[in-house]
């Protein structure tokens, strides 16, 4: 991320390749509309393992990149791990600025809600 570029290379890469954008038929879903952003998550399970994740998001590039990163990271993992999803560590790994915390916390709420 250069001094004038508000986006890290990770955010740019994820925003450009939103492979997990979309919806899934069946399974669980959650939708949140707050903090000026909208996010919806879909999940199918294979037993207790997450088979597939998809998202739709209306918001800034950081939110879209974070949603994509979450889906990539959690497919194949036990559904019980969703409760441990942490917005702060994702923000740190993607270089998301602190002023975007509120928006990424909406994603965190959506992920935790999906896991319950």
């Amino acid at each position: 991320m250069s001094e004038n570029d508000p986006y890290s290379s990770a955010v740019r890469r994820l925003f450009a390749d939103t492979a997990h954008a979309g919806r899934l038929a069946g399974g669980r879903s959650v939708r949140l509309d707050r903090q000026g952003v909208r996010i919806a998550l879909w999940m199918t399970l294979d037993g207790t393992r997450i088979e597939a994740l998809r998202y739709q998001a209306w918001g800034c590039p950081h939110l879209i990149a974070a949603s994509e990163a979450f889906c990539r990271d959690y497919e194949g993992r036990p559904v019980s791990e969703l409760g441990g999803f942490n917005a702060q560590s994702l923000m740190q790994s993607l270089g998301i600025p602190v002023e975007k915390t509120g928006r990424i916390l909406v994603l965190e709420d959506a992920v935790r809600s999906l896991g319950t």
Partner: protein
Amino acid sequence: MSERTVYLDYAATTPVAPKVAELMTRLLTSGSDFANPSAVHPAGRRAQALVATAAGQLADLLNCDPQQLIWTSGATESNNLAIIGAARYRQKRGRHLVSMPSEHKAVRDVLRALERDGFELTWLAPDESGRLNPESLKNALREDTQLVSIMAVNNETGVVQDIEQLGQLCRDADVLFHVDAAQAVGKLPLDLAAMPVDLLSLTAHKFYGPKGIGALYINERPGCHIEPLFFGGGQQRRRRPGTLPVPMIAALGCAAELAKGRIPADLKHLESLRDQLWQGIRNLDGLRLNGDPEHSFPGILNVSVDDVEGESLLLAMEPVCVATGSACNSQDREPSMVLRSMGRSDAAAQSAIRFSYGRQTRSADIEFAVGHYIQAVERLRALAPGQAA
């Protein structure tokens, strides 16, 4: 090799015209034109002659007297000097000031600073096309009103105000009229000898000059004076002291001379680009023009679309360089104050994109931008969950 970019952000800043850059380079490297123009020796007199030439070139563009011009660092300083300087000069007569919420921050924030110092502000909202109804101004003027500040061309929407009519209302009421003309000078014909304008701010980098140099026009009719903001030298009749940056001033003069000869051709070029751009995007679902098609500078086109977030749109459109809100404000993701004051919703203001183009923009650039804009809007709409019922 750098990636192709299409620069459509001329309202933020323009490239320096080659002839202007050549002149600056020559003056910076000549070894004989570096003197302080306040000095009375031959080298100083040569520098002073360059300053006088530039003042003549700018005065010729504006149709005013060169003595009515003060050099500044740009429009922000000119706005500060005009508004604070005039308000302080006239404060014994009254402390009421009038402006619009759709002004540039360099005007709004100056006025808010004066408000904290005890001045009273009246903010006049534009209509939904961005224009100020002269009747609103007439009704807002009071016995104690001292200054009205209205911009000539809005930096976000390109909307052109009726400066003649608004200025005449002020003149009739013995109120000073300041115009932030940063987006108008060198782009639209301005005849200050015929216009009821008392103070006018401009900057070189909006019309193919360098950044860091601007000017303030002061009418100097009775009652039209400013108190200085800076102290420490006798330059510019003590109104704006400091050693004059001769190469920058000469560059501004050169840019003004170039502009004067090109305004009709530039406008024709911009109208053609605007029409091509508008025809290319106008059929997009949920698209709305932010501005007044009848009273707009053709070098700016501002549009909103339903259900798309502006910051993501900006990134999705790369390598097309456009702006959301004003570029000076681009790190601030609050919805545009200009568009909000025109009655646009937060969502519409958030999705607004300002296309601004100029002399070097070609039809192929517009075609490229149209394709990227439509593609980005469609992609982001597909990414978004529908609106809640």
